[in-house]
Every structure is written in structure tokens, then in C-alpha cells.
């Protein structure tokens, strides 16, 4: 389990990274936290000629408030920093709760936001949050900067709208409405495993108690992380309650087309989408009603 030989670069600036990616393109892989790439290298399933290690590019490691009140999270931010960040806790506890479900402590300590989003495992938490919230993925390449909308970023299992000579620099997460409630629910075979199914919910209630704003995402039930726009649409304007949650759960289960694998049948996954969404909606509504500040 040793990788074939590769050339290794560890640039200090973003410009140098982009130049290297421009020079090597398809023969090149970016090393950030290494939680997916290193096993692929060691199993010789990936054989890049060049590795560009971006860990020393300090500019990529920042969590900041965006101009619209949302969050700007640098590609090199570690999962553990999401869990521990005061800013994330106050502004987007959904992200913190999702990050808590990623792997184990060692994985969260090394793994990065940019790496997880670029790798794009359809059962991974951060791609799920990106899809749920409609985040904007900011990318640098030889032609300069561009933004990719979450809705079209993932094109298939572990494939994204990201060229070999491009690098994700950060991700912009839109601000949550005031008093929003949230929930992240996941079933995995063991603690820390990739989700069999996971569901993210962010919602806000209007003054009349009706659902005014809702975002629903699902991981582990399709080739890409899903945003359940149809279910969201049906919920807006509804007064939350068991009947509404059950209806949403049923609609969600009907709208996904999951796969069977070693860990769960497709039917079970479909069932879980409904179960988890029902639970997540209930929790999120309760939090929105209490307008809880997370501890």
C-alpha cells in the first residue's frame, strides 16, 4: 500500500498553486487534508504525476463573516474548526452539527472543507450542506476567479464542475434567517461512518407561526447530494404539525431514488429519508419556536 512516485510541490501562495495547476492540469492532484486522496494514492487507484500540497497557503484557512451576513469558509478550514468555531455556532449551527458527524476526531482534524466539497461524495456531510443551503462555491483557475452555484456544481457521484487546473478557494454560505431552527439527522452503520442517509433542515417561522423559509437537503440517497425543492415548496405557508411533517416525509421518500449497497437496501434508504426528515422538521420547528441560541 505505497503510492507510485510523484513530484511534490508545496507552494505558499494561491498564485503559485494556480500556476502549478496550469502547468500540470490532468496529471496533477491537489493535496489538502488527504483524507480521500492519500488512501487513493496508497491503493494506487490514483496515479498523479504531480502533487500540489496547498496546506501552506495560509489565505485559504479563514472562517469569516461575508458581506451579506453569511459565512465565508476557506477551503483549508478543517472540519474540527467548524465544530469549534464560535462564529459558526452563532450563525449556522446546522453546519456545526453536520461537521460533528464527519468521521472521527482524527479525520476531522485533518480533513478540509474544500477537500470534502471537491471530492463530492454523495453521502458526505459538507456537500450535503452546500446543496441544502444553495451555497456558492468560489473557484480559482488560470482564467481567474469564478463562482459555481451549488445547484449545478455536482454532476454525478464524485464528479463536479471543477476542472483539473482549478482550485476551490472558499465557499459562501448564505445567512440563515433570523430565529431559524435547524436539524441535522443521520443514520450510519457505526458512529463516524459515511451516512447511510442524512437529512439537513433549516427553517424559519413567520409571525403567524407558518413556515416562511425552509431548506431541505438529503445525503446518501442519490448520485449527488440532494436539495428537495419540491418538498420545500410544499411546506412554505404550512402551519407545522405532525400531519404536515408526515406529508413532507412521505413526499421526500417518494422523491428520492436511492441505491442498495452492503450497508442498506434502497427501500430502507427511501424509508429513512422520510423518517429522518420527519424528525428533523420536528426538531427544527421546536428550535425555531424557542429561537434557541445553541450552546
Amino acid at each position: 500500500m505505497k503510492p507510485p512516485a510523484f513530484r511534490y510541490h508545496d507552494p505558499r501562495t494561491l498564485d503559485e498553486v494556480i500556476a502549478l495547476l496550469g502547468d500540470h492540469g490532468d496529471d496533477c492532484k491537489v493535496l489538502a487534508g488527504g483524507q480521500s486522496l492519500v488512501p487513493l494514492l496508497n491503493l494506487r487507484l490514483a496515479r498523479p504525476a504531480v502533487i500540489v500540497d496547498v496546506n501552506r497557503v495560509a489565505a485559504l484557512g479563514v472562517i469569516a463573516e461575508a458581506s451579506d451576513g453569511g459565512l465565508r469558509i476557506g477551503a483549508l478550514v478543517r472540519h474540527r474548526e467548524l465544530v469549534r468555531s464560535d462564529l459558526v455556532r452563532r450563525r449556522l449551527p446546522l453546519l456545526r452539527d453536520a461537521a460533528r458527524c464527519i468521521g472521527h476526531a482524527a479525520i476531522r482534524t485533518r480533513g478540509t472543507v474544500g477537500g470534502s466539497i471537491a471530492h463530492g461524495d454523495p453521502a458526505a456531510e459538507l456537500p450535503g450542506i452546500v446543496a441544502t443551503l444553495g451555497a456558492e462555491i468560489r473557484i480559482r483557475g488560470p482564467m481567474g476567479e469564478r463562482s459555481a452555484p451549488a445547484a449545478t456544481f455536482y454532476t454525478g457521484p464524485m464528479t463536479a464542475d471543477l476542472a483539473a487546473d482549478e482550485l476551490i478557494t472558499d465557499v459562501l454560505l448564505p445567512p440563515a434567517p433570523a430565529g431559524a431552527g435547524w436539524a441535522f439527522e443521520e443514520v450510519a452503520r457505526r458512529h463516524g461512518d459515511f451516512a447511510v442517509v442524512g437529512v439537513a433542515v433549516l427553517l424559519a417561522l413567520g409571525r403567524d407561526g407558518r413556515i416562511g423559509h425552509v431548506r431541505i437537503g438529503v445525503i446518501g440517497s442519490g448520485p449527488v447530494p440532494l436539495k428537495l425543492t419540491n418538498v420545500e415548496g410544499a411546506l412554505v405557508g404550512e402551519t407545522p404539525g405532525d400531519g404536515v411533517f408526515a406529508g413532507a416525509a412521505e413526499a421526500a421518500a417518494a422523491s428520492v431514488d436511492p441505491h442498495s449497497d452492503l450497508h442498506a437496501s434502497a427501500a430502507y434508504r427511501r424509508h429513512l429519508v422520510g423518517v429522518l426528515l420527519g424528525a428533523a422538521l420536528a426538531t427544527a420547528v421546536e428550535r425555531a419556536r424557542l429561537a434557541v441560541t445553541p450552546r
Partner: protein
Amino acid sequence: MKSYIGRSLPRVEDERLLRGDGRYLDDIALPGMLHVAVLGSPHAHARIRAVAVEDADAVPGVVRVFSGEDIRAISEPLRGIPSGWTNHALAVERVRYVGEPVAAVVAESRYAAEDGRDRIRVEYEALPAVVDPAEAVTDHVVLHPAKGTNTLYHRRFTFGDVEGAFASAERIVRLECRWGRASGNPVETGGCICRWDSHDGLMTVWTNMQAANFLSPMVATQLGLPADRLRIRRPDTGGSFGAKVAVWKYVALVGLLAQQVPDRPLKFVEDRVEHLRASSSHGPDRRYEAEAAVDAGGRVTALRVKCLDDLGAYSERRPGMAVKPLTGLSGCYEIPALEYDVRCVVTNKCPQGAYRGFGIHAHNFVVERLMDTVAGELGLDPVAVRLRNFIPPERFPYVLPTRLGRYDSGDYPKLLRHLCDVADYARLRAWQAEERVKGRLVGIGVATTVEIGGYFDNALYAALDLGPAGPIPEQVKVGLAADGHVDVHVGYGSEGQGQDTVVTQLVAHVLQVDPEQIRVHHHDSGDVPNSFGTGGSRMAVALAGALGGALAALGRQILDHAGRLLERSPAELELDAQRAVVRGRPEIGVDLKRIASQAGAPIEAQYTWPAPELRGDEFPLSYLTAACAAHLVVVEVLPTTGQVRFLDYHIAEDCGTVLNPQVVDGMTQGAVAQGIGQALYEQYLYDDEGQLLTGSWMDYLVPTACEVPATKKSRIVTPSPYTAFGVKGTGESAMNTTPAAVANAITDALQDRGFAANALPVRPDAIWAAMRAAGRR
């Protein structure tokens, strides 16, 4: 007199290992060392047409490349029992499982070796794979054409009047079970470094192979060497659970390569992928049909068990795990008539190897599920059924109807009643009824087991023509050093069970010295002392026996010397607090350091525990002791997801005199974890083409601390009449008990939901699907 027996002395091994000062196989780097990479077969079943190594030879750093034909030219096929069911250390003519070694590269680094491996070209002609053991039985496709059949072993053992008991039974209770293929999966994988010294004609091997002394003559034969030309050195070992017995096949391979690349050490350490798919350490993989003849009172009068065991591609040792249940066929129960029909077939999967529990664990699962099924069908409480069927305490020593097992001592009703008291079973059942009314799917599972131990299966194998009989001695050497320390020389390798601690306690106890004054020394094979090492729950019994003999002799010598110094008769003296003193007058004495320095000759003693040959009327008996364990598990099944949650877990054990409770509890807790893996998580799954689907730890699910509950442990003590200090072999009882207890609890939780946990591991989606189907009916 200070008693050191029965105390939870902190493990003397721990400080060094926890500080990171351990030295494991892969830590060893020898001057001039070369590295080996092994090319595994991508096919489950194929003919090898040609192996082209020229491109690999040309890779920088590659020293030499070997194919199966190179190995065939210099050695015999791997030795197995029965013979003729193995391949060579590198496959010739045919491959029979995915990952089977086909070629090997020796290079200056593991990197270069793997680069070379990538350039080997093998031409295969794919053959149909036999994956389903039921299909293997039909012999439509035969894996070993010279044998003409896939059935490697088939025998029906009948003891007592089974036919009569079933004919007159009030009721016959039937059960079908499946036991999934799982394995020990130690954190440290297996491997070796072999150096052939051409000048001395000596093979030196550094390896974490389990039972190294025991296996070393076989390895020597495989290498064409006299036994004394093979020297095995054992670094620290990061777990085994049986899995590292099979490391012998790597020692054979790398040893053969080393003879071809003389005077350079060659290192091979499995990576995890290799371990999972090709370590020859997969455990039992069985389908069972079982039936019990039951009388009106719920007494089981006869037991029939039919077992189909999927051995994988080869028998690289022997089908030992399939026959070991004969030594404990009826578990804790007095069942006068027994039948065991065991058929072992070969399939295109990784060969089986030893796994903790050694086959009895799967059998006991069936027996314990069957007892619960009897209880269910008769409307009886599972505890009551067990109490009715236990071997009564007055029947010990109890010779099984098989005459292949004898339980030394025990009080099974007392142990189970103790467990029920500790867990407050009656109150638990009342609580369960209340919760079930509220809709919670809570279940209580009970399971018991005997854990035979203290010796080894050689007598059984000899009786079944599966290997030679022969003693399994345990040897120790003890000495009083000039500095007053006690030196203990031992022959076992340690996979982490804490033997050094137990040795320290026994020495401290007998000689009345502080544990800090005791040094335990490990030795290479070939030096005295000899030891089989761990296996078959034997170490407590074997070490107590060996040390008991050696320390008695050493103590006599010390008192003789002390008598001369004190001008007293040795009979007047005793050992106390690092001194030899006059009985009743401890102020008159001489310390051990002075005794040692003035003795004028070494004070030392060596003793070989002979491992008494036990004989029954028809067959030799294999084991000295029978410990017993009873588990009570409370689970909740989540109705929405089918997930299983542990609410409580109680264990009661009786392993005779306990040398170190913490060591026993640690081994038990580890076995609980493995039992939960067997029950809920771990399984090697193959697709229809024989490709391994669970080829990494992302898919082969070993439970972590998050999945394993803390358990509440307590014990009763029934000393063994046959061993020093009354100890019994123990450590793996939970392998036999946990899967059954968990399965019984899940089945109890789902009693009206159409699910019985008879096929392990149980996946949550299977539970959910069964609940859904039951809901629709």
C-alpha cells in the same frame, strides 16, 4: 503472607507500550534489508496461463521477481491437513481466491517492490467461481480436480440413542441458523522478516506469528531445514485473536525467497487490504440445521446439529474449528443423546484460519438460540428452561456423552441465579412488559456457555485422524539473581493478554517478593524455555502449572541456602517480604539479595509442566478445565429504523481461581466487542464472482467503542480440581455468549414483529424489512 493472587495488579506490560516504547515487527529495520510485495490474484477462480516478470525485473530497485513456478522448483505445496488441499506459497496452475499470492517482488524498498508488482503480467483463464457452499456440495465445479470433490471433510458423530429420543419426544424444536464469516482483525497485521545466513546455514525469522514455537518445526520442514536451523524471534505483537497463526504461510513464502536472496533480510508486512482478503484468517462461515427433542417438562433429551462449513479455498492447517465443538457439544446442558453432522466444503474464498472461540463460538450460538426457541415454543421463561437443562453441580467432573470432553467443575444453576440476582431479572421482566405496552421494543436476552481451556486440541485431532497426538508442554526457568531480583524466563509470545502480569503475580505470591523485584524475560525459539504460546485458553493453566513446579524448586533452594546462613533447618524457614525468615519469628532472617550473593552458585530452577494426557474410555480428552459464563443483555430495537441499542449488559463468570480480575475483565470486554461485531456488524461478503465486497475497514465493520456497551461483570468461583491454584483457562467465553445473548435479546424485542435473529450479522435494514412485512400481514 501477602496474597498476590486475585489482585488487579496493574499490567506490567502497559507502561512501556503506552509510552510508545514497544518494538513491533514493522519497527524493525535491519542493515541491508529488502522488501517484498506480493501480487494477489484478481480472480476468484482461474487457470494461470503465463506469468511474465521481465518488465518488473527492469524496474529500478527491483532485485528479483518470483512466480509460482519458481517456488514449485524449490519446495513442496504448503502443508495442510488433510494433505492435498493446498497450493504452493505462490500459486501454481490455478488460483482459487481473490488475493491469493501469485508472484512476489523483492526490492530495495516496499515502494519499488510495489512498482515492480504493477509490471508483472499474468495471463489467466477465468473459471466459474464457487461461492455458495450449498453449490460447492454439488461438485458441479470442483476446485481441486485431483480430489474430485469439494467436500474436504464430512462425518456424522452420534452419541447415545438419538433416534430413540426423537421418536419418543413430546415435541421437536427446529431451527436454521447462519453464522457469518468474520475474523480477528488485529490492529497490527501479520508479517515477517527472514534472513538466510548462507555461511551458518541458519534462517533467522522475526515475526508476529502466533504459536511460533509450536509452528516452527512445520515451517522448517516447509523450508527444507532441520528444525534447529530455524530461529524465530518475536517482537511485541499488536493483537492476534488467532489471526496470526496463519502468518506461518508468509514465513514459509518469505523464507523460501530469502534462501534465494541469501544474506539479506527480507521484510513482508501485510497491508490491511491484504489482511482482509488473503490472510487465511477468516473465521467459521456456517449454515446450521438444528433440532432438539424435548419432553413435556421442557427437558432437552437429544440434540441434532447439522453444520455446513465454508472453509474457503484451502485447508492450510486443518478443519479444526469444525470439529472442536465435539469437546463442548451440548454447552452447559446435560443432554444424553447428541448428533453432530459436520461437512466442510471448499469454495473460492479466502481460506479459514483460527479465530478466537475456534468454532465453538458458532456452535454455542446455535445451542443457545435453540434453548430460547424451546422456551418460546413451550411458553417458558428462557432462564427457567436453562435451569431445567443444566448439568447439575453434583455431576462434576462431567464427561460428555461424546467422551471427547470432560468438564472439571462448575455450578451452572448458581451462576445463572447469581446473574439474575445482579441484573434483578424479575424486575427487568416486569419493566419490559410495561415498556412494551407503551410501544417500546425492548428485549432481554440470556445466554450461557462453557469455555473449555487449559490445554489444546491435539488429542481430539489425533482421535479424528486430523493430526498427530503429542504433548503441549509449558516450560519456565526461574532464578534468583545476585542483585536479589527474581528472573523469570518464559517461552510464550504475547499478543496482549497480560501474561507477564500474571507471571509476575504468581512469582510474587509464591516467593513473597515485590512485583518490582521480578523481571520477565522473553526468548527466541530454540532457546529454553519452550512454550506453545497462547491458544485454546490455556495460558493461566499452563503458566500456573509450570511456575508452580519451578517456583517450588526455587523456593526449596533459597531456603536451603538461607538455612546455611542462619544455621537453621530449612524446614523452620519461610519466605516473607524479600527475605527468608524463621517461621513465627520474622525478625530472624536474611534477605534474598544476601542469599543470592553468598550462594556461590546460581540459584535457579527449570520446570516443564507436562500437560497431563487425559484419557476417556474411547477417545483421549482434550481439555483440563471448563469455565462458565452467563450473559444478560437488554436491548431496544428502534421501530422506525430497525437499529439496535444496548440498554444494559450484565456478565457473570466462573473461571475458577482468578489470578488477576482486571486482566480477565479486559479479555472478556474485548470478546464482547468481537461478539457484537459478529452479531451486528462484521462479515466478509463475496459477490457471485467471488470478489470480496468488504475489502477495507470502511465496509468490513469492526465495532468501535461507540458501538460496544460497558458491561457489568461479576463472578463466582468454583476452583478446578485439576490445576495449580484451581485456575481455569479463560478469556474468550464472550465469543461464545455475546452473539447468542444479543440475538436472543433482539428476538425477544421483536417477538410479535416477525423477526428472529437466527442469521448473523443482523443488519438494521433486515430488521426493518421484517417489521414492515409483519405489519402488512
